[in-house]
């Protein structure tokens, strides 16, 4: 689900920007404006930070005053990644930075591991994280997913404790604990109830509502065709993904994670021929260098590393192809590609003057249409996942407004009569890192590439699982196995064996 939380709506009131990019810039400037103006967010003047600013000024002045050029015989391109690292994380989205944070948190000794996060676009223009709707829910059907969400919600609740950096602004991800509401018709009510039982068994606070209770609670819903609804009471809602990403990033960098702006273009690896039990020969690969290309240049730096974590989101499949995952005869282990590909999803922002008020959860209709309140000015975000046949072209992030008029609006209006008079304000598109096999995460190692780990393929629910997934990968690497949550069901080998780990959702 994708969200764009419009800039400054919290403090400066709703600003209407027709284009998402302008909104993006406006948000950045808006936030900067808010933090530098004294206004309502005055921090105590920090002596150390002011002193450091003075030092920077002094250094600048001496550089200008003293003669000499900046030339050095050992010219080094600025921004190169370090020549060696212990763990290289490919992808600087929320999963990447969450893993980096947890690796540093678990290392138990200072500089225990050197972690480098390589991100090719620091503006995050196409990254799934920042284009996400930002919802978090526990209403899954797989217990692992339920626990991932619950533990992530617990993390987000205590985010100050985890991600606070001394002398910096406190972390605030603007969590709206409004819950998710799944609506089910007669055909899906059994699945919903079974999911409800699973969720309750795992400890999630979910409740089932009859249409009458639904009507009483949310009078603006048209309950035609609804047999039962499932409403999340706790740990569900939505938050700002950009703020979470930045919080992880700031904390990880303060703990010593190296950040590199570059693109992974290849790997240098060595191969070793092994024989399986039945005599077939298999080539095991071990990556020993990651080639990171600098932006707008042909120069690349081979980073010597012990482990690589592929958390490149929608492009994880491409990164996996670089090491040759999937180059092999069909039906063999070598021939299994990483089944992650980008899928475009649209999110529409609309305004409705007399729509649902504050008590509006993220509602998902039985047809799959979803919407949620955004801010306090009567704006909403909504969308619908297209069917397999209608999958949009992924080469760019252009929005198809006709889709809203044809597929989304009618269903919205049918479910909430007030939405008949809505006005579409803007829209954006983002990529799911879509797992074409079973639309669930891929977490763990690869059987043939011995030092590559995966944490990708979340197909739309990566952001909400990011704290728990980061911790799981860090445990897998540093402790050798999953400790708090057993995510063994999400391993890579299930693609070979054919065990689909499917979500039994009604959407």
């Amino acid at each position, binding site marked *: 689900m994708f969200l764009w939380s419009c800039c400054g709506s919290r403090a400066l009131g709703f600003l209407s920007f027709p284009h998402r990019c302008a909104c993006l810039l406006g948000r950045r400037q808006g936030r900067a404006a808010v933090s530098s103006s004294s206004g309502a967010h005055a921090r105590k003047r920090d002596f150390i930070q002011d002193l450091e600013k003075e030092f920077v000024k002094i250094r600048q002045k001496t550089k200008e005053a003293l003669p000499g050029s900046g030339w050095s015989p050992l010219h080094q391109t600025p921004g190169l990644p370090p*020549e*060696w690292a*212990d763990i290289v994380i490919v992808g600087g989205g929320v999963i990447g930075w969450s893993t980096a944070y947890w690796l540093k948190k678990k290392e138990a000794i200072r500089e225990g591991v050197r972690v480098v996060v390589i991100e090719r676009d620091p503006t995050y223009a196409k990254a799934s994280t920042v284009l996400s709707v930002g919802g978090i829910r526990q209403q899954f059907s797989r217990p692992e997913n339920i626990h991932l969400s619950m533990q992530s919600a617990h993390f987000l609740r205590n985010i100050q404790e985890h991600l606070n950096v001394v002398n910096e602004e406190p972390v605030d991800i603007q969590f709206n604990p409004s819950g998710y509401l799944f609506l089910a018709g007669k055909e899906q009510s059994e699945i919903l109830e079974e999911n409800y039982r699973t969720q309750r068994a795992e400890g999630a606070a979910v409740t089932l509502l009859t249409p009458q209770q639904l009507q009483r609670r949310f009078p603006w819903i048209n309950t035609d065709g609804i047999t039962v609804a499932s409403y999340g009471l706790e740990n569900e809602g939505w938050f700002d993904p950009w703020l979470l990403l930045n919080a992880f990033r700031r904390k990880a960098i303060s703990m010593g994670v190296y950040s590199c702006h570059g693109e992974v273009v290849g790997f240098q690896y060595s191969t070793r021929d092994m024989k399986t039990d039945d005599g077939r020969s298999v080539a095991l690969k071990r990556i020993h260098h990651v080639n990171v290309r600098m932006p707008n240049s042909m120069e690349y730096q081979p980073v010597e*590393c*012990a482990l690589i974590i592929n958390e490149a989101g929608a492009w994880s499949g491409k990164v996996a192809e670089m090491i040759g995952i999937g180059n092999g005869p069909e039906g063999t282990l070598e021939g299994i590609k990483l089944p992650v590909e980008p899928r475009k999803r649209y999110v529409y922002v609309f305004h409705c003057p007399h729509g649902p008020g504050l008590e509006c959860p993220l509602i998902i209709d039985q047809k799959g249409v979803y919407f949620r309140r955004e801010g306090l000015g009567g704006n909403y975000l909504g969308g619908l996942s297209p069917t397999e046949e209608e999958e949009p072209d992924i080469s760019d992030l252009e929005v198809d407004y006709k889709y809203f008029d044809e597929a989304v609006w009618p269903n919205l209006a049918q479910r909430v009569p007030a939405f008949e008079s809505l006005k579409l304000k803007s829209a954006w598109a983002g990529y799911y890192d879509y797992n074409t096999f079973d639309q669930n995460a891929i977490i763990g190692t690869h059987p043939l590439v*011995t030092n590559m780990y995966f944490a990708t393929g979340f197909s739309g629910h990566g952001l909400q699982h990011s704290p728990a997934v980061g911790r799981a990968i860090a445990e897998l690497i540093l402790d*050798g196995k999953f400790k708090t949550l057993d995510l063994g069901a999400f391993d890579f080998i299930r693609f070979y064996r054919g065990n689909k780990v499917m979500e039994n959702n009604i959407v």
Partner: protein
Amino acid sequence: MLKILIPTIMLFPTTWVINKKWLWPMTTTYSLMIALLSLLWFKWNMDIGWDFSNQFMAIDPLSSPLLILTCWLLPLMILASQNHISPEPIIRQRTYITLLISLQAFLIMAFSATEMIMFYIMFEATLIPTLIIITRWGNQTERLNAGTYFLFYTLIGSLPLLIALLLMQNNLGTLSMIIMQHSQLPNLTSWADNLWWLACLLAFLVKMPLYGIHLWLPKAHVEAPIAGSMILAAVLLKLGGYGMMRIIVMLNPLTKEMAYPFLILAIWGIIMTSSICLRQTDLKSLIAYSSVSHMGLVAGAILIQTPWSFAGAITLMIAHGLISSALFCLANTNYERIHSRTMLLARGMQIVLPLMATWWFFASLANLALPPTPNLMGELLIVTSLFNWSNWTMILSGLGMLITASYSLYMFLMTQHGPTPHHILSLNPNHTREHLLLSLHLIPVLLLMFKPELIWGWTL
């Protein structure tokens, strides 16, 4: 003497002329033959102090173990470097081997020098090939920093030594060690004489290294390639010890008062650097700090100048040279497979490489001075003589030995025992070359257990 030195120098044309296919086997074989020939140096004719002499070079029981160690180390260095140098172009491989041979030649001349100036020149000359090895073939950008530290720390210490030697030459008329040991120095009472004492010893204290001026050592050891680490740990540190032992006999009676601050630094350094070892995340860095710790004991022993302490110092120098070099080779086998020196990522190796675990075990046990290894013999002699000099040092050196035991065990347990991470399970198995390398390190230690008289020196 010349029958070892000339073949060593002839190894230069050998490396440059020999066929590419035979480069590594032949250089290894020839240097091994020279090493075996050098074992003749162990024979000591007790009537004469110095043996195997010519006009400029001679061997006595202090220099012979160090010389044999130097000659022994060259084939081991060539064996260790074979894997990581092989992808390079052939000319660079020849250059690398040339640098190693030149180090051996300089070191032979340094240890067998009878004239202090020749010793000084060779002492300085060894800096150049080592610097080239560290800065050119080291693995990371930090190697430039490491090279700078290494070069300038040693130079700042050794330039005063040149002045001091020239002053001594002026006073005595000669700097030949054979004559100097019988000389009587004039009354040394002025403040300048104290500075002269310091100038004589500072170079060697930096080289040993002494605790306060040891910063170059972890950097140089970690950034150097395996052959650089081996020669640094095994022999170049001992240059400092050897120089100190030669020159300190002439520095009485100043030593009685002047040695105190350095003794304190040395003995305190044992505990401090051992404790730092317990907090290291980088395996090579741990072994480097362990070198500083052991050399602190040696420095303390040399400064108190008793017969037992000298014997302990020499014994510990030889034993530590072999074991430290062995540990660096073991760390290198890890590094060549995992491409990372971090201890957190290379755990539980015993399951995957069991025979290497045996070598790790033996080397760690020798490092923590398990009886009856010569490491223990050296440490015991040193600790006893320090105790004799002052009872209070027992607390510090005893505590130091305790912490040494704990970090050696920590190193062994971290790398060998514990849960094996997933990516370790499919590592390449050990090459025979690696096993040969380690056995050639550890068999001399075993043999020295049976005849430590060979490395005791002339005082016991």
